[in-house]
């Protein structure tokens, strides 16, 4: 049978029915999986960033062992790919991409956004990162180095962005509230809203 069926919905229904009948994947298991995945969101990563901004020991742990740092904040990492954390610094900015597919730090950021999976993003990130992030209005100083990280294997990468000035006496909760999904991939930088 040629799988040229473009009606993905019908194919999903058919596959699910067969797998349920064979006891391989039930409706309940799929629903449970959706519920678990829905619990991951950029808010998880934002909590890690806010903690790192206020606690140098946590920052060091995050950079050394991202998975352990996530678990410390109650983010489930068992069975998940190892988390790598790319630490921005004055003069150094990181941008994450998966040119081959869409590998994304889902455990701490949730589902990858539409743009991350697009042909334009996957092609442009490794070749013209500044032109690409300009699509988000992000402009970096001329002397900032941009390191583009292509997620080609088992690690999943997130960016630990720079803390914006003017937040020196903010609480972790206040800090986490300004860290967006794009800040942890590198297409944007955290701003005071």
């Amino acid at each position, binding site marked *: 049978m040629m799988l040229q069926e473009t009606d993905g919905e019908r194919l999903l229904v058919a596959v699910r029915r067969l797998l349920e009948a064979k006891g391989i994947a039930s409706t309940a298991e799929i629903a449970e999986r959706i519920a678990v995945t829905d619990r991951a969101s950029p808010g998880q990563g934002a909590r890690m960033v806010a903690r790192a901004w206020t606690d140098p020991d946590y920052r060091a742990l995050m950079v050394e062992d991202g998975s352990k740092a996530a678990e410390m904040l109650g983010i489930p990492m068992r069975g998940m790919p190892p988390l790598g954390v790319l630490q921005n610094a004055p003069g150094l900015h990181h941008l994450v991409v998966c040119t081959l597919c869409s590998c994304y730090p889902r455990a701490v950021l949730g589902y990858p956004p539409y743009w991350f999976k697009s042909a334009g993003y996957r092609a442009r990130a*490794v070749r013209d990162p500044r032109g690409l992030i300009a699509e988000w209005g992000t402009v970096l100083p001329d002397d900032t180095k941009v390191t583009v990280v292509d997620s*080609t294997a088992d690690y999943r990468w997130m960016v630990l962005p720079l803390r914006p000035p003017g937040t020196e006496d903010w609480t972790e909760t206040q800090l986490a509230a300004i860290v967006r999904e794009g800040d942890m991939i590198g297409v944007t930088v955290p701003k005071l809203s």
Partner: protein
Amino acid sequence: MATFAPGTRVRVRNDWPEARGPAHIRTPHYVRGAQGTVVRALGAFKNPEDLAFARPAPPRALYHVRFDPEPIWHDGRKGNDLLVEIFEQWLEPA
């Protein structure tokens, strides 16, 4: 296989298994044949090239390798670099 210490200059093999039959390769086209510098070892992981075909998949050492983009793209853009996870079997000393 040799272990590559951080700072070692390496070359990515200019090999194209895709040309020889069905393959699943996680070494992007743009680094094949390129020279880079090992940043650090990332651990050992089962070879995805084998996992993709449900073959026995021995763990292989994975490295983070830094590449200068200019010899790759010839675009004249400055101030960027590339970090790519590359498995040991794709690397040789430069």
